[in-house]
């Protein structure tokens, strides 16, 4: 540090230039550019993709639910864990939402939201407690709860499904209405995203999540409350999946027992594409959110670009692999650069 201080002020070290450099080199920027390219390409092929009222609404609306789940997944992955049960939690809370409207006539909307988030948080608490206290890998525990939660959902729902006619009109309106042209669902997702990003960046407990993910043993020795933080991450992930479940019911109206099936891998995929390292300690929820946006926008853009939409899953897979390879290459380059820097500094 002292060496640096004695150097003359170099051009490009002002705070504005530093900000520009940081944005230009941020991992999220690449994904954002990819997302913009996809949107531009689809819009050129068919202008109604962006410039019609419905097109613009769908562009924002479609990724909103996955975005919520992906934020939760990113937080869990940052602590070097993984939550495979989020898809099942979405399904269970979506069904609970419908049941609440059917079984408790006249229930206020806020009650339904609280109910869904509480159930999701509770299911997340089960995951977190099992992972943290039994010291068992999260992969195994959440694989188990993936089955259990889905099984409970199917047993509860049986062949029934929630239909749009079971839900009150003002609740359904939440799924489609807009404020200033922006869908309400997207606003909710954006508020959650900003809150989560601020928490992870600025609060002590948020930074501790990164420390735990980088090296759990060192974090423990340093005196961080690893158990509590890990449980907290799982509760947040579950609660966000619960919120997504409630909104799922509002958005789609019909809820069968297969709601949210396979979302866990999509959410993890979104986080990984957005630069959240599966080995923990690296990444932001911004990246995960852009990743979720990119995943679902590609799904909608492919048919417009003339690619059979059966191929969308292959594109998603190629994207995931491409982004982790990219991360690896960047990490190796930075490693080399840091070594070179050390030689220079000596």
């Amino acid at each position, binding site marked *: 540090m002292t060496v640096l201080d004695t150097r003359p002020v170099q051009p490009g070290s002002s705070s504005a230039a530093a900000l520009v450099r940081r944005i230009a080199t941020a991992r999220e920027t690449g994904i954002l550019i990819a997302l913009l390219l996809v949107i531009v390409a689809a819009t050129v092929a068919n202008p109604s993709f962006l410039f019609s009222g419905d097109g613009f609404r769908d562009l924002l609306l479609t990724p909103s639910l996955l975005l919520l789940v992906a934020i939760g997944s990113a937080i869990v992955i940052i602590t070097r864990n993984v939550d495979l049960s989020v898809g099942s939690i979405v399904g269970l809370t979506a069904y609970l939402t419908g049941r609440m409207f059917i079984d408790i006539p006249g229930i206020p909307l806020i009650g339904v939201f609280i109910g869904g988030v509480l159930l999701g948080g509770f299911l997340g608490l089960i995951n977190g407690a099992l992972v943290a206290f*039994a010291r068992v890998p999260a992969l195994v*525990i959440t694989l188990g709860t993936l089955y259990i939660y889905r099984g409970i959902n199917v047993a509860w729902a049986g062949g029934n499904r929630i239909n749009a006619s079971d839900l009150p009109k003002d609740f359904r309106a939440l799924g489609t209405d807009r404020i200033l042209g922006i869908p309400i669902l997207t606003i909710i997702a954006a508020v959650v995203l900003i809150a989560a990003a601020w928490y992870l960046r600025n609060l002590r407990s948020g930074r501790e999540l990164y420390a735990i993910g980088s090296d759990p043993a060192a974090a423990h020795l340093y005196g961080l409350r690893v158990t509590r933080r890990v449980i907290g991450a799982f509760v947040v992930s579950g609660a966000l999946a619960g919120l997504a479940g409630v909104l799922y019911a509002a958005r789609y109206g019909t809820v069968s027992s297969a709601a949210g099936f396979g979302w866990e891998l999509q959410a993890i995929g979104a986080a990984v594409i957005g630069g959240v390292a599966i080995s923990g300690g690296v990444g932001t929820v911004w990246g995960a959110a852009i990743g979720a946006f990119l995943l679902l926008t590609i799904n909608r853009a492919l048919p417009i670009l003339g690619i059979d939409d059966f191929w969308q899953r292959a594109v998603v897979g190629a994207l995931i692999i491409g982004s982790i390879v990219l991360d690896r290459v960047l990490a190796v380059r930075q490693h080399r650069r840091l070594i070179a820097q050390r030689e220079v500094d000596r």
Partner: protein
Amino acid sequence: MTAATASSNGRVAPARVYKLHARPAWRRFLLTREAAIIALLILVIAIASVTVRNFDSPLTVTYLLRDVAPILLIALPMTLIIITEEIDLSVASIVGLSSVTTGILTNAGWPFVAAALTAIFVGVLCGVVNGFLVTVVGLPSLAVTIGTLALFRGIAVGLLGTTAITDFPEFWTDIAKANIPGTPIPVIMIPFAILAIIFAVLLHFTPFGRSLYAIGLNKEAAQFSGIDVGRTKFILFVLSGAVSGFAGVYFTLLYSNARGDNAMGMELQVIAAVLLGGVSIFGGRGALHGVIAGVLLIGTLGSALRLAGVTSDIINVITGVLLILSVVSASFLAWLQARRSAAVGKKKGRAGTSPDGS
């Protein structure tokens, strides 16, 4: 443990106490995870054949073994992979891709054997992709195989769309559905038995197999002791791809159906069964007989409950509970043992002298 407590009491500790040999032989063989799973399997079979009607009929056995055969097959290489502390989530997608390949090539007029061999070769290629990304590029296998899970499945779905190919040579579909003459055991169990023996010998009786445990316990130490970690893992992923490809061909023949979404979600069933069978997700622990018992346990439970009229969703719940119990019980027992030996140690310390415990 014994050595540590003994020496802390100031007594002369034996030069080396192998943990495994600290207990009598019958304990070492019977009080293991594998033995517990096998006992549970026998218990389930015994209870089900007494209480569930038709459970002991030959038809049940046939259908049970037919349905679990793909999981049994894939569980073999998956065990080896998890023992080296890696994971392969893409196996079910490889099954789907192999199934689609078989279907398309047969439909295009290829002789079935050539189509099947090509499908297995496609499986090998998928394994090569996984292995390359994990060992050469150096990426975590969880992330890689989540990616290839989507990629391979996407290619399978992309190739066939929503169409299904259902036209296969009768000779081969009959073989896939046939039983070994005179028994209710389906023919697929013969290649499975051969593969199981090969994998068991490979894992338990060859230097290659033993090196897998070394890698799983400590990769760096294994590397320093002369094991080519990268090559070993690469071979495992290729094996996994090949066996999954074979399972895909069998799957196609069994249901006379090649679709892009065949065997969806089977990767989680396979991993659940392997972990239930006593393989540690941290690597370095596990045995094939436990895994086979684990697969059969889940299959038998499912089949018995279905015959008893329980719906399939409860079976999912039971699978999940079993999986969690199997891992939580292991760490609970370890915690209990640690507490017990700590308590014994304390008591010894207070008493000053004590006879040799445990």
